[in-house]
């Protein structure tokens, strides 16, 4: 049906993942950082599906389900935390949230 090589998808997923990492390092806004995490998860999903399709197995697809579920849960809790942070210290800049330093 389609003659797309597996490696294309893998490279794409690698690039997306790397971009996610980049954003994770360089964004300051907590919400955006969250989004970068989601981006990484998506990249991983892509790799999962590509592999499972290439190997003709279903496990990869099932993992994608679980990844999505976990992402949903993580988003719910994480955004609640973000709400708290912004409520407590009127800022979403992650660099203002550094009370954890020794």
């Amino acid at each position: 049906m389609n003659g797309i090589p597996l490696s294309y998808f893998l490279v794409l997923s690698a690039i997306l993942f790397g971009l996610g990492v980049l954003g994770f390092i360089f964004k300051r806004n907590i919400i955006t950082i969250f989004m970068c995490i989601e981006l990484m998860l998506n990249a991983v999903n892509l790799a999962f599906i590509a592999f499972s399709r290439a190997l003709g197995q279903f496990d990869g697809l099932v993992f994608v389900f679980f990844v999505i579920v976990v992402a949903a849960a993580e988003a719910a809790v994480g955004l609640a935390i973000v709400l708290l942070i912004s409520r407590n210290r009127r800022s979403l800049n992650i660099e203002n949230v550094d009370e954890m330093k020794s």
Partner: protein
Amino acid sequence: MPVLDHIWILLLFPLAGSAITGLFGKRWSHSLVNTFTIGSVALAFLATLELTREFFSVPASYFPVVRTFLPWISAGQFRVNFSFQFDQLTLLMLLIVTGVGLLIHIYSTGYMGHDDGYYRFFSYMNLFMFFMMTLVTAGNLALLFVGWEGVGLCSYLLIGFFFTKKSAADAGKKAFIVTRIGDMGFTIGLLLVFWTFKSLDYSVIFGRAAGMPVELPGHVGVLTAIGLLLFAGAVGKSAQLPLYVWLPDAMEGPTPVSALIHAATMVTAGVYMVARMNFLYAHAPVALFTVAVIGALTAFYAATIALVQTDIKKVLAYSTISQLGYMFLGCGVGAFSAGVFHLMTHAFFKGLLFLAAGSVIHAMGGEQDMRNMGGLRKKIPWTYATMFAATLAIAGIPFFSGFFSKDTILAAAAIGPHPHRILWTLGLAGALLTSFYMFRLLFLTFHGQPRYDEQTVHVHESPSSMIGPLVILAIFSVGGGWWALPKLFGGRDYFSDFLSPVFSASQRLMAATQGAGVAEEVGTNFATDLLRVFWQPAVAAALLGLLIAWWFYIARPDTPRRLADAMRGPYKLLLHKYYVDEIYGAVIVSPLLWISRNVLWHTVDERVLDGMVNGTGSAARAAGGQLRRLQSGNARSYATWVVIGAVAVLTLFIWTMVRQ
């Protein structure tokens, strides 16, 4: 056959009763609690009656019936199912348990009436019924063990029922721990059984055991080991030497508990187990002989202690121990049916004795010391009459139930090979003492002059809910033994006939292997022996004991004191129960305490373990002191660190891949 095909229904009733009452009963009125708990037991009893009907509706050859309902454990080779075995022995035990249990439940409604732990008490009692019935109906040793431990648990709970009383709580713990010692042997025995027979089902065990040689003295082997180990459990559970110490303390529990658990049913579990495994023991004469020896020794030993006890329940406790000894003696000399017979009659009269004693205590307003009683005959006639009947029964006065069972045992011992005759003499002496201390109890309590302050203590007869069971039990303890009555006149012993299908195989085996005609004769039917035994010292002993007691406590009430003064040493020895508790305390408990305190606690725990833990902690702190510099608190730096780690891992990965 509705019930027989679903025996588990039988167990369901008390379990449900216990669960429901225990969970929701806190706020309930007493009557509601009664409805559930006694109702459940009554249902169980009715079911057992139905079971009996079904039992007799089919030929005896139909039994034993084994019903497997659910797989329970299935680990590789180790398979255990929820399987139940039903045969004559099971039926008998079920009747005893449910019947006596029901009576004692009813009794308890009167006795515990004023206690605010009412629902708790009955929930525990029902739980006990459940486990006891599991024990007797179990079709394999594992399930039996469940019941075994379950009744132990209930015994613990009920002994410590008044847990606010320290002595009660301690007694509970003691009972639990001491029985544990025996159960450890039992557990090892189970493992050994599985290792030997690759199964725990009775049927399989006996089937495979049949193919194994009988381990006569000199060729002792695994079967003997199994027999001894299992018996160790029985020793703990049935309070035999040397693990009997928990039973007297167990009297801290409410009297109905003492009657049900520590007289009628639970303590006889050991006997039941030995009787159930009779075929195994038939293959291990050495183990069987050990059983007999322990039994005879206990029978005599406990009786001696009972002589001088002044607490009414303590006397009964020691008497229970000694009677259990008789049962083991019976089994040990190969007269399993006689042992079980005595188990049954004992359930009747000892249950009755305890209940009556409870009634006395109730009447005296909690007084348990016989020295402060006396002359209660008039005040509580019903209690007196029933207790009198029970005393006659236990003392082995002719035509009362105890007479048949106990004298069958003695006869079996008497006509056995030589070593058995020594045991017989022990048993005989025990019989004498039994009759003495029982009548002593009776006379001290009910005859003579009141030794209590009649102003403060208002003696009153107990409510009918307590008297009813007493009467019924009295009837049974008088007539419970008449199964064997025809034998006196050359007839048959219908009891051993009834049980013979269970024991015949081992009887034949023993007859074949140990030559002595004992087994065969006792097990099956011997018209002459009991006649021969009849005039024999057993009865004489009983009557003699009665006379001495009468002389001591009615005719010459001052004799005992003079006697005690005359032989102060033995007296103190007996009074302090041979100082066994003290000895155990010195030899076992305190060393254990010392080890656990000094070695385990101060050395291992404090030095080694805490040392390790603290060392780790301080090391971590030192390291942290250095690493804290990394912790800028800036999430982006952390992110960078993470990425560095990921890159490092990847490069390592690549490096290894390149190397290949």
